[in-house]
């Protein structure tokens, strides 16, 4: 650095911190403090002496790992996690598969109606999850749904989408419908950043569109596939709105269907904020472990591929 520039930058030393002050303050107040408080609560419990009446009869005491032990051995919490796992195994591959397919199709030469279809497929992004669940909920409801009307007229069997195993498909469909467009845009954007020369050589070698897609395009957008996969896992683990909204339409969605719903019920239904805090902490840890594990695995693969 030359000396005048150094003098200048000395004068602006405090500026970046001043610009970051609002974000840092909000981060401390609405991220760090609540997370710290939740972790603190997760190690506490209420000790009730006597009948729990009168001043001082209910006292908050140290609980150690008791809440965590309870959460990990809790049957409902465990089953909620399994349900979300099953749901995620449908949502993530189907949603990203469709997003990749649509992105590749948009990137094909001589495709028609691309701007219209691109906007249409992206449209659900603008629709709140609650409203999406509500719309599909009605479409699953035999008394209102056009699908059931057609099935009825054709004398075909009418599946019950709101109960049993089909419920997973019904819920997954809502997430796929809502999320495909956004992921498609992310993948399509990175497809378009591939320089045209890359394809020219392959075309001269006689590669068809399918081969170009499989051998060149997909490997080149791998980083954005990793990114969308990563965000989809996080979103799936946190599923709450869709099952909560479908609940009024079916008895098969319990109030504790997903782990997050159980946290809500424990905190506000039962008023046991300590167990809820422990469960929420466990979900956060699972999210962090999964995401970092995944990112590390993805990085390692990239390095391996780059090495030879």
């Amino acid at each position, binding site marked *: 650095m030359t000396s005048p520039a150094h003098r200048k930058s000395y004068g602006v030393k405090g500026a970046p911190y001043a*610009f970051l002050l609002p974000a840092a303050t909000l981060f401390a107040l609405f991220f760090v403090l609540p997370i710290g408080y939740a972790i603190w609560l997760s190690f506490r419990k209420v000790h009730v002496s006597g009948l729990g009446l009168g001043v001082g009869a209910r006292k908050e005491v140290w609980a150690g790992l008791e809440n965590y032990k309870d959460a990990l051995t809790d049957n409902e919490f465990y089953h909620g996690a399994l349900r979300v796992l099953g749901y995620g195994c449908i949502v993530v591959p189907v949603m990203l598969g469709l997003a990749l397919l649509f992105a590749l199709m948009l990137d094909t030469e001589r495709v028609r109606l691309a701007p219209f*279809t691109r906007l249409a497929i992206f449209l659900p992004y*603008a629709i709140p999850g609650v409203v999406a669940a509500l719309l599909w909920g009605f479409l699953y409801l035999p*008394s209102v749904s056009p699908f059931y009307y057609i099935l009825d007229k054709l004398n075909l069997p009418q599946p019950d989408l709101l109960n049993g195993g089909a419920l997973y498909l019904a819920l997954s469909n809502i997430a796929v419908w809502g999320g495909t467009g956004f992921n498609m845009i992310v993948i399509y954007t990175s497809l378009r950043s591939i320089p045209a020369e890359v394809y020219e050589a392959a075309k001269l070698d006689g590669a068809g569109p399918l081969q170009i897609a499989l051998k060149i395009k997909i490997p080149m957008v791998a980083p954005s596939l990793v990114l969308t996969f990563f965000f989809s896992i996080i979103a799936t683990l946190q599923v709450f709105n869709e099952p909560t909204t479908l609940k009024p339409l079916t008895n098969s969605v319990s109030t504790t269907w997903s782990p997050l719903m159980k946290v809500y019920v424990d905190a506000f239904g039962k008023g046991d904020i300590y167990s809820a805090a422990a469960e929420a902490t466990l979900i956060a840890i699972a999210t962090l472990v999964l995401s970092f594990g995944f990112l590390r695995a993805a990085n390692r693969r990239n390095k391996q591929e780059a090495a030879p």
Partner: protein
Amino acid sequence: MSSLAVRKAAPAAGTTPGTAQGPPLRRRIALIPTLTLLLGAIYTLLPVAWVVIASTKSGSELFSTFTFLPGSGFAENLKDLSAYRDGVYWKWMGNSALYAGLGALLSTGVSAFSGYALATYRFKGREAIFNVLLAGVLMPPIILAIPQYLLMAKADITDSYLSVLLPQILSPYGVYLSRVYATAAVPSDVVEAGRMDGASEWRIFTRIAVPMMIPGLVTVFLFQFVAVWNNFLLPYIMLSDDEKFPITLGLFTLLQQGNNQPALYTLVITGAFLAVIPLIALFLVIQRFWSLDLLSGAVKS
């Protein structure tokens, strides 16, 4: 493009150049991709088309006539919805506009400050601060919302507009996008030239950097507007007074009551239809001068 394509493109200016082989009309449309995309569009538009049509049906038509046949009750549904609990529906819409509009505006400001600082200055702890802010994306909203609620209960500000507005101002994704845009759009020699001219850091930011970052900041605003408008969990936890509900929570409570009285279904459906209009309209209008690509942080350099 190959020389063949260039020669071919000359007569049909404006259309995508096709290759030289085959009958021109059949070769010019890629049939399978176009059909696949159309199927995708039908899939995404179907529920929207359904709600548009269903909102025109009166209560009895909803359960008796074929769903994709328009009914005759839209005006009445609208009247019923507006009359429901003294027009609380429009109150919800207003609340959503307030939460999303003001929230997104403040969020864009904070993101612009942070993104600009992280992009243009070299300072101690820069990457650490950025990574810590980004880690916020990973936090499940409920692990934040419950302790936020408990802490706000101590400060006695739950069930208020502030309790929904404040936690949504800082958006890790917004900070990330702002940094990407500032890095791409604000050249460091322009900033340095401003300093040479003796402009203060604040002046350089407001007069030079912000105008350059505008397209990116519009994206941050839109992204956060949609995120707040669509948020359900936070208001669900924070609010109990339905006069302060946003539209998502309002529709949810309406659906819950409809569970016992199917007559309310027509209100829920009409309400859902009206609730998606503002965001769809916003996207269609903004589409004209805004590229969807910006949303994924892609910037042309």
